[in-house]
């Protein structure tokens, strides 16, 4: 484990974790982007795009409505992308293992966001008198404190998750017994299942959606067959 790999990944995880909710919510934290950037930091953006697209299929399910609880994909996808390219040989099970690493991080990151929101409430309660007095410094200070805490949360989570999960994934990959076809097939099946269910969840109340989806499916499938 090279500290010169962990630090930039932690910074990236912090920035992209911040993008999920706090600033600027420009979807830099989506897995398609985050995993590609993380793998790019380690020298293989193409591989990062592959794992990023796979995780993006799963992330289609996440609808980040207000107070609902959902995975924080920014730091999770950074960990997934970095784990996937950490071993340059891309052994057979690496996609499945990288997905496990990303999804496990996503579970922890979602929990950490809930804790951060509770901390924000605690800080706001402590500064109630300043808020009631309309103190400019209090309002701005709370906002900046929340954003700083969100960045630190994402950075620490990314660093710890990568430091723990990258060696575990590497060790598992060395004793992996399924061949690459089965391993890739299972990984893709898992992601595509969630994506298909997500499409139903988002679209089943939209008029004419099923016909448009079917038409698109025909066009997309033909494009795959003809390529």
């Amino acid at each position: 484990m090279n500290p010169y790999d962990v630090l930039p990944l932690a910074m990236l995880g912090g920035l992209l974790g911040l993008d999920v909710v706090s600033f600027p919510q420009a979807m830099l934290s989506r897995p398609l982007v985050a995993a590609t950037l993380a793998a790019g930091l380690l020298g293989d953006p193409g591989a990062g795009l592959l794992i990023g697209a796979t995780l993006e299929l799963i992330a289609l399910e996440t609808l980040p409505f207000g107070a609902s609880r959902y995975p924080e994909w920014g730091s999770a996808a950074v960990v997934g992308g970095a784990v996937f390219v950490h071993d340059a040989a891309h052994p057979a099970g690496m996609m499945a293992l990288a997905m496990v690493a990303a999804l496990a991080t996503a579970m922890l990151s979602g929990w950490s966001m809930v804790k951060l929101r509770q901390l924000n409430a605690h800080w706001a309660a402590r500064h109630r008198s300043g808020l009631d007095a309309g103190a400019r410094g209090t309002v701005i200070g709370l906002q900046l404190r929340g954003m700083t805490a969100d960045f630190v949360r994402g950075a620490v989570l990314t660093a710890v998750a990568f430091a723990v999960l990258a060696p575990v994934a590497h060790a598992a990959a060395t004793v992996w017994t399924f061949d690459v076809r089965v391993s890739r097939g299972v990984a893709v099946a898992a992601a595509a299942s969630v994506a298909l269910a997500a499409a139903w969840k988002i679209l089943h109340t939209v008029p004419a959606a099923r016909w448009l989806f079917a038409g698109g499916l025909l066009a997309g499938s033909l494009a795959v067959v003809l390529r």
Partner: protein
Amino acid sequence: MRVRAQVLLRLLAIQGAWNYETLLGNGIGFCIEPALSLLPGGVHTPRFKEALARQSRYFNAHPYLAGVAVGALARAEIDGEAPERIERFRTALCGPLGSVGDRLVWAGWLPFCSLIGLVVFGLGGGPVAVLAIFLGLYNAGHLALRAWGLQIGWTHGLRVATALAHPLLRRGPQAIGRATALAAGIALPLAFGRVIGPGRYLLGGVVLAVVAGALLVIRLEGRLEGWRLALLALLAFALISVAR
């Protein structure tokens, strides 16, 4: 112009202190503060402080449409509207700006752009092309919505409710939903085809597994999210692979 730019920039950070008690409240105060500095006497007057205190209380809205509230409330404060009227307006604005934004953006524009990104990926696009198209398309809509919201809020003030009948907000979610359905149909096989790589030799089995898995996720909706199910399945697969 400078104040508008400051407010627009701060809108990008409106959720920085989001919490389960006041939700977006502090964020509204944070964003509206540069506009309130235009009040007579500036930031050290009782009028400024009362306005800022009022605007930093509980509020709920979609972050991209919160600019409607920020613009309208800033206009109301600067026009000297009665505090009780501003409070009632604030309360009335909460619900619509949340639900419309969720349908338009989180359940509409975001999955649509994500699927377009996956189409480009599935057609063989490299990292630069995929990221540029996804981020460019998404943020063109994102930033336009924030800027538009602030503009109509400031222009209409307490009468902004009539502006919320804009066709974009009324018909946009359904139109984007239809486009998303088409994009999903095209994107899923294309992305699937590129990611599966060597696994395409087992295509038949994988397709069956996908359909069965999707039905299971739909069946379990509300009890277990799909991503958790995927984690459990992949973890089990990994343990079997390592242990056998």
